[in-house]
């Protein structure tokens, strides 16, 4: 068989129906395909050969009549047919097809994955050895890239709220110790972005907890203490809940129950970012006080810092940004459950935001997450693959990250990998473009 995605045969019948057949053989003399039933030659209008041309990144087609067709094999399951007497155009097409395929196989067998990518996409060769010495230096480099090419006007963000992500227990402690202004300043300093114009804005919200790592979820006491402080400062608190393994079910139910009781007594509400459907089920009867927000682990999208090298993406510049939320019935269903706020990430593209209340996280975007912890596995076992459930997490993330080659703008934090979308902090027009799509809030992560 020729691999399914690079060769096919379409048989058009006289009644205009099309039969899709697998290409079993293709050489200079002719090509073969097979069918589950015997073919009536009299019914055939044309036989179309489709071969993928890598360089053009599309299929080439050649049409033939039924007259050259013959049966070459038959067994209990299929009939194999062959087309010969194909002509010069066919021979050139097939020669080119095999040449390109052979080249791919050669690179795949003889080169490194980096070289294969280089040959096929122009992915930079040799850059995968170029690392920052530590995360601080990596952030400095990113800051330099942002500030040296910064076209920012806070007025572009008019009507949008700025919120800060407080996604680690350490960071939350600092928030509880410092006034908001001083906390914001400290976070900007940590990211070497004090000179960024966004430092002139006043955050109106904080997102506490961590959408990815269960070990960074604050205790109820800390959540309530944060709520009280934020209330005094005129700031809204949003709680991010990571996905819930079965072993955390009782804790999660208790947290939700107690938080709901607290809000009932205060006659208040709190937004809760939900990252698994089980937690959504637990919130079903509680949405009068706990307002669910569709988290990024449920609002799935294709994300990869190497997207620009991907052949189809780079050729079409058409990003695969559609997802379930582009379906009206799906949005309606979520609305019935109380979800009208959607959380997104800016990953270099411009997702079409659906109508609703949209939250955009910048500048980091998640690409990969493990329910267990790859960072723990590296630190404890010396092997990222040796993962298991960690009960008393020593928080290696307080000291360590997984560094990635500089050109990728990628970092391993907590139990996840995150891309860094520099452009979200370089040009405020990027965010302004979302305004009409209903972007209400920007959540800024400053690690």
């Amino acid at each position, binding site marked *: 068989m020729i*691999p*399914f*995605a*690079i060769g*096919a045969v379409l048989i058009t019948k006289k009644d205009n129906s099309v039969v*899709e*057949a*697998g290409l079993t053989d293709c050489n200079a003399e002719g090509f073969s395909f097979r069918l*589950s039933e015997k073919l009536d030659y009299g019914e055939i209008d044309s036989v179309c050969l*489709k071969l993928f041309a890598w360089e053009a990144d599309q299929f080439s087609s050649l049409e033939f009549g039924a007259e050259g067709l013959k049966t070459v094999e038959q067994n*209990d399951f299929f009939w194999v047919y062959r087309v010969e007497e194909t002509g010069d155009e066919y021979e050139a097409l097939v020669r080119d097809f095999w040449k390109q395929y052979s080249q791919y196989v050669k690179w*795949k067998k*003889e080169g490194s*994955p980096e070289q294969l990518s280089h040959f*096929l996409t122009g*992915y930079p060769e040799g850059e*995968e*050895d170029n*690392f*920052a*010495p*530590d*995360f601080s230096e990596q952030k400095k480099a990113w800051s330099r890239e942002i500030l040296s090419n910064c076209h920012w006007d806070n007025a572009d963000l008019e009507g949008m709220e700025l919120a800060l992500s407080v996604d680690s227990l350490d960071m939350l402690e600092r928030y509880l110790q410092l006034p908001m202004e001083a906390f914001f300043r400290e976070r900007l300093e940590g990211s070497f972005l004090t000179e960024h114009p966004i430092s002139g804005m006043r955050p109106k919200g904080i997102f506490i907890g961590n959408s990815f790592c269960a070990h960074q979820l604050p205790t109820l006491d800390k959540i309530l203490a944060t709520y009280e402080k934020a209330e005094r400062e005129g700031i809204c608190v949003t709680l991010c809940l990571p*996905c819930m*393994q*079965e072993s955390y*079910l009782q804790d999660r139910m208790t947290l939700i129950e107690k938080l709901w009781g607290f809000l009932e007594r205060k006659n208040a509400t709190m937004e809760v970012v939900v*990252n*698994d*459907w*089980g937690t*959504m089920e637990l919130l079903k009867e509680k949405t009068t006080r706990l307002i669910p927000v569709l988290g990024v*682990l449920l609002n*799935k999208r*294709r*994300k*990869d810092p*190497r997207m620009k090298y991907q*052949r189809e993406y780079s050729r*079409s510049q*058409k990003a*695969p940004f*559609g997802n*379930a939320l*582009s*379906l009206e*019935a*799906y949005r309606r*269903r979520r609305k019935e459950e109380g979800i009208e706020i959607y959380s997104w990430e800016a990953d270099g593209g411009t997702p079409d935001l659906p109508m609703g209340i949209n939250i955009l996280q910048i500048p980091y975007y*998640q*690409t*990969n997450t*493990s*329910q267990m912890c*790859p960072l723990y596995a590296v*630190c404890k076992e010396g092997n*990222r693959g040796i993962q298991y459930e960690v009960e008393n997490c020593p928080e290696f993330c307080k000291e360590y*990250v997984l560094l990635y*080659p500089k050109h990728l703008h990628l970092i391993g934090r907590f139990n996840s*990998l995150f891309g860094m979308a520099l452009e979200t902090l370089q040009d405020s027009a990027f965010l302004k473009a979302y305004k009409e799509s209903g972007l209400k809030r920007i959540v800024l992560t400053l690690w």
Partner: protein
Amino acid sequence: MENEMKLVAGFGTVEEYPLYAAAGADELFCGYVPFDWNEKYGNLQPLNRREVRYVDVQIGAFEELCILHKMTEVYKKPVTIALNALCYSGEQYPRILSIVERCVAIGLDSFIVADPALLLEITRSGIPCKIQLSGELGEINTPMLEYFREVHPTRVIFHRKNTIRDMGEIIQKMQGKIPEYEAFFLNEMCHFSGAFCNSLHCDELCHLCQVPYRLGRLDATGESVLEISKPRPFSEQEDYGLGASGCGFCALWKLGEAGVTHLKIPGRGNYSGFMEQDIKSARQALNILKESKSEEEYLSRMRQDLFPAGCSRVCYYR
């Protein structure tokens, strides 16, 4: 052990179906990508989680599915179609429903689904089919399964990071509500969770988890780089090793005790000979399991028969 778990194996071409059925697979699964989907969306918006062009990883023509269906009538091993991409764009849903309808019409009526909107659309459409909840759907816990009971799933496929303890609790609590539970136990043990792996898996760029990394500090205190990822192989592994990329043979007794009904051997696109050997070894292990009176007896016999020279130590469950 009394719980007789069934083996479910992935395959990439019709030729592999009889091969794997003869090797001992009880059920099989594959992907199907129609030509017009392939031509329009390519790998950028794939129909399922096999996103390469140049390797035979799934069925690419409807006639191949018809041939496959004829084979299922002879070999009597059911086939499930994987429609398990993490997300689709709005215009793709009607196309997928049409694919589901065509498959059902020829008797292939079981599907693995990972996208909640597709679950909703299939249910709304009323197409009579069986739904298996993919491990790529997200975290699997009891309330999550209660949440998705409305789509009447026939099976839950646990993801690779579910612990056996969690599986056992979930199966016990969901008894009588969802009949079947499938767990991974061989090959392709990823560093990240499938449900939360949003990066590329195309021909021209390796998986993001295979890009080199270094363990580094947050700032310049102490030695900066502490560990460097191992260099990636230049080409795919040529030598066969049972469980070399992920192994759960030692966990079979506990998986059985937990109530798992099906064991998944992923491997769509793997070398056929390797997959065939995997299935034969898994069948051998299940036979030993059936005859064993205790976990100790099973482990001793299984290790002696299958791993006389030691194992890969790439354990699915620890």
